[in-house]
C-alpha cells in the first residue's frame, strides 16, 4: 500500500499526487514510469514519473482525468492509499551534458518532460522549453520549468497566454531562425509529437519522443504497447517509452490507442452511475 501524502489540483482535471515510495525513488531516472493499481478491481495504469526525491522517498505523479480510472484516481485524497505501485519501469533516458536541448511539451506532457529538463539543466546544458496548452488555465508546471530552463516559450490554442496556436509552430519558428539544438525532446499528445517530429525532420535535428501506449503489465510480458519504430515492432514499456521521433509509426499508434474506446465509455458510464467523485471535502 502506498500512502498519498499530497494532492494538488494543477488545472481543471489535471492533478498532482505525491506518494511515499522510497524504493522506487531510489532508482528512478528521467524518462521512466510506474504502473499503479488503485484497488482489487482496478486496472494497471502507467504514469510517467514527474519527480522523485531519493532523500524523502516522495514520488510525484501528474495525470489528467481522461477515463474512468484516472477520474477515480483523481477522487482519492491525501491520506488515502493506492494498493499497488511498481517501478521504475522503462529504459532510463541516457542524459549527458550537451550544448543545447529543446524540450517541447504539450498539455500534461510537461510533467514527464520536467525531470529530463531538470537533469540536463543540472549538467549545465542550455535548456530551451516550449510549453503548449489549450488555454492559460491548462498550463501546468510553469514555475518548475522556468527554474530549470534558460528560456521558456509558451503557446495556447486560444491565445490566452503566449503564442496563439500550436507549440509546434513555435518550434518551427526557432528552427527557421537558425537554432540548432543537439536534441529536441517532445512529450505530449500523439498528433503533436508527430507534427513536432515532422518539423525537426525538415532541419535534420535529433528528436526523442516519449510514447504513452496502452499497457497491461508494463514489464514486457503482454505486447499491448507495441509500436512500429523504423519498420520493427518494439515494446514501448521495456524498449521505450522514449524512441527516435523520426522513426515512429504514429498513425499506427494513434489507431492502436482507440482499441478500447467503446469499453472506456462503458466503464465511465458504469462509474458515474455508481456516484463516483472526489470526497476530499466530505471528510
Amino acid at each position, binding site marked *: 500500500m502506498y500512502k498519498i501524502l499530497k494532492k494538488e489540483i494543477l488545472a481543471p482535471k489535471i492533478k498532482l499526487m505525491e506518494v511515499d515510495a522510497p524504493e522506487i525513488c531510489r532508482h528512478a531516472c528521467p524518462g521512466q514510469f510506474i504502473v499503479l493499481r488503485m484497488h482489487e*478491481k482496478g486496472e494497471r495504469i502507467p504514469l510517467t514519473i514527474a519527480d522523485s526525491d531519493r532523500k524523502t522517498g516522495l514520488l510525484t505523479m501528474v495525470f489528467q482525468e481522461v477515463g474512468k480510472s484516472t477520474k477515480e484516481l483523481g477522487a482519492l485524497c491525501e491520506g488515502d492509499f493506492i*494498493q499497488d*505501485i511498481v517501478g521504475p519501469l522503462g529504459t532510463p533516458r541516457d542524459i549527458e551534458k550537451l550544448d543545447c536541448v529543446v524540450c517541447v511539451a504539450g498539455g500534461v506532457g510537461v510533467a514527464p518532460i520536467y525531470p529530463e529538463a531538470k537533469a540536463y539543466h543540472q549538467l549545465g546544458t542550455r535548456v530551451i522549453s516550449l510549453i503548449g496548452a489549450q488555454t492559460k488555465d491548462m498550463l501546468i508546471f510553469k514555475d518548475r520549468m522556468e527554474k530549470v530552463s534558460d528560456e521558456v516559450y509558451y503557446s495556447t490554442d486560444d491565445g490566452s497566454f503566449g503564442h496563439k496556436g500550436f507549440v509546434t509552430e513555435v518550434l518551427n519558428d526557432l528552427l527557421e531562425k537558425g537554432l540548432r539544438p543537439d536534441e529536441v525532446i517532445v512529450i505530449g499528445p500523439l498528433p503533436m509529437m508527430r507534427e513536432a517530429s515532422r518539423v525537426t525532420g525538415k532541419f535534420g535535428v535529433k528528436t526523442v519522443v516519449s510514447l504513452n501506449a496502452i499497457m*497491461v503489465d508494463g514489464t514486457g510480458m*503482454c505486447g499491448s504497447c507495441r509500436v512500429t519504430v523504423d519498420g520493427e515492432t518494439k515494446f514501448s514499456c521495456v524498449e521505450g517509452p522514449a524512441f527516435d521521433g523520426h522513426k515512429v509509426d504514429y498513425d499506427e499508434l494513434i489507431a492502436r490507442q482507440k482499441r478500447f474506446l467503446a469499453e472506456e465509455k462503458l466503464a465511465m458510464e458504469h462509474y458515474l452511475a455508481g456516484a463516483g467523485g472526489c470526497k476530499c471535502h466530505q471528510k
Partner: protein
Amino acid sequence: MSSKVRKQRHEMPKQAPDMRISNFEEVALGYTPELAVAEATRCIGCPKKPCVSGCPVGVDIPEFIELIAEGDFLGAAKKIKEKNSLPAMCGRVCPQESQCEAVCTLGKKGDPVAIGALERFSSDYERAHGESLTEAAPSDLSLGKVAVIGSGPAGLTCAAELTKLGYKVVLFESLHATGGVLRYGIPEFRLPKAIVDEEVEYIRSQGVEIRLNVLVGTTVTVDELFEQGFDAMFLGTGAGLPYFLGVPGENLNGVYSANEFLTRANLMKAYRFPEYDTPIWVGRRVVVVGGGNVAMDSARTALRLGAERVSVVYRRSRTEMPARLEEVENAEEEGIEFMLLTNPVRILEDDKGWVKGMECIRMELGEPDDSGRRRPIPVSGSEFILDVDTVISAVGTNPNPLLIRTVSGLALGRRGNVIADEETGETNIPGIFAGGDIVTGSATVIAAMGAGKRAAHGIDEYIRTKNGRGM
C-alpha cells in the same frame, strides 16, 4: 489380483460443454470420495513404482493412492505434500499423461491409474476440510537467507523447499499478485484462482515472506540484495516477451498476443468487466494461431467471452500439437474448430485499422526438423482468406530479459535463456541459481517445479559449503 483390475479408469465428472461455454467456472468437477476410492483401488502397488520416477518432483504416488483406497484422504494429502507443495495445482495442470501416468504398469493393458485426478481429489478434500494450514510451520529458519525471484511454479516450489530445509526465504514478484503463469496465463476454468491463493497461503504459512510489486533488477538490484544479506538467489523469472507471427498486419487492432489476451482475462479479471476495470475486446469470429496449451486456453477463453466462432490455426498436424490431449478434447467438445496444416500469411485491414480477415496458406509435412517433428512446408497456390475480426497469436515467448540483462557476466544461451546446471540450478555466478522457463524456454508447470526443487537443494549445498558446515 491384477486380473480383476478394471481396465477403464473412472472418468472425472465435468461440466457439460453447452453449459460451460457460457461461464468461467471450472470444467472438471473432481472425483467424489466414492469415485476416488474406486479409482485408487485400481492401483496394483507394483514393486517397481515407475510412476515415481516419472514424476519430476518424485511424489510417493503408490503410497498416497493406497491411503486414498483406505479412505484416509487427509493422510494422502499429507503424503503428497512431503514432496509437492502445490498439489491442487499439479493435479489440474500437470501433463500426467506424458509423465507419471505414461509409465504406469496398468497402462500396458488398459488405462493407467488416474494419478492426476487422485492427487487433485486428496488436496481438494484437504482444503474443503480446512486442514491445509494446520501443519506447523518450521520454527527454525536460521540456516541462511535466500531471495527467490518470481513467484511462478519454479519460485514457489523453490521457496517452499528451502523453508523445509531451514532457510529464511523472501519471495519477490513484479506483478501485484503471486503465481506467475498460474495466475496470468492459465484460465479460471482450468485452474481456479482461489486454489492458487490457497496454495500460496500455505507456502506463506510455512514462513516464506512475499513481496509483491518488486521488479528485481530495477526496483532493487541483485547487488543490493546480496548487500542486504541474502546468501543466495534463485532466478525463476519465467517466460517474457511474446513472439508475434512475423506477418504483415500483426499490429492491427484486434490482434492480441495470447499473453495480453490471457493476462487481461485472468490476472485482471476482464471477463468481469465493467465490475473490474480492465477491458477486453473479442469479436464475432476469432482465430488463434498456435497448437499448445496456451492456444487452447486462448480459444476457450474467447468462446466464453462471447465469440460466435473460434478456430485454432496450426501449421502442423494433430500428432505434432504440443497441447495436452485432454485440453484439445475439451476445446473440441466446446465447439472450437481446428484448422490444421494451415499457416497465416498476412492479416487484412479494414479502413479503420482493425482486422477484417486473415490470409492463410495450406501446409504439408516434409522431413523431420531439429525438434524431431516433420517440418511443415507451404503448398504454393493454396492461399485462402479467413473471415475473422480477432487474431490471437499463441506462438511462444522469449525468456524474460528484464532481470537477467541487469546481472553483468551472467552466462546466457542463444535464445537469451539463463544457462544453469540441470541438477543444481547453478549459474556461472556463485550464489545465483536459476530454473524454470528462464532456463528452458516455454515448458510445463511441473518441469519448472522440478527445477525449483532441485535448485533448492543446490542452494542448500552451496550455503552449507560456503559456511563450512558440510552436508
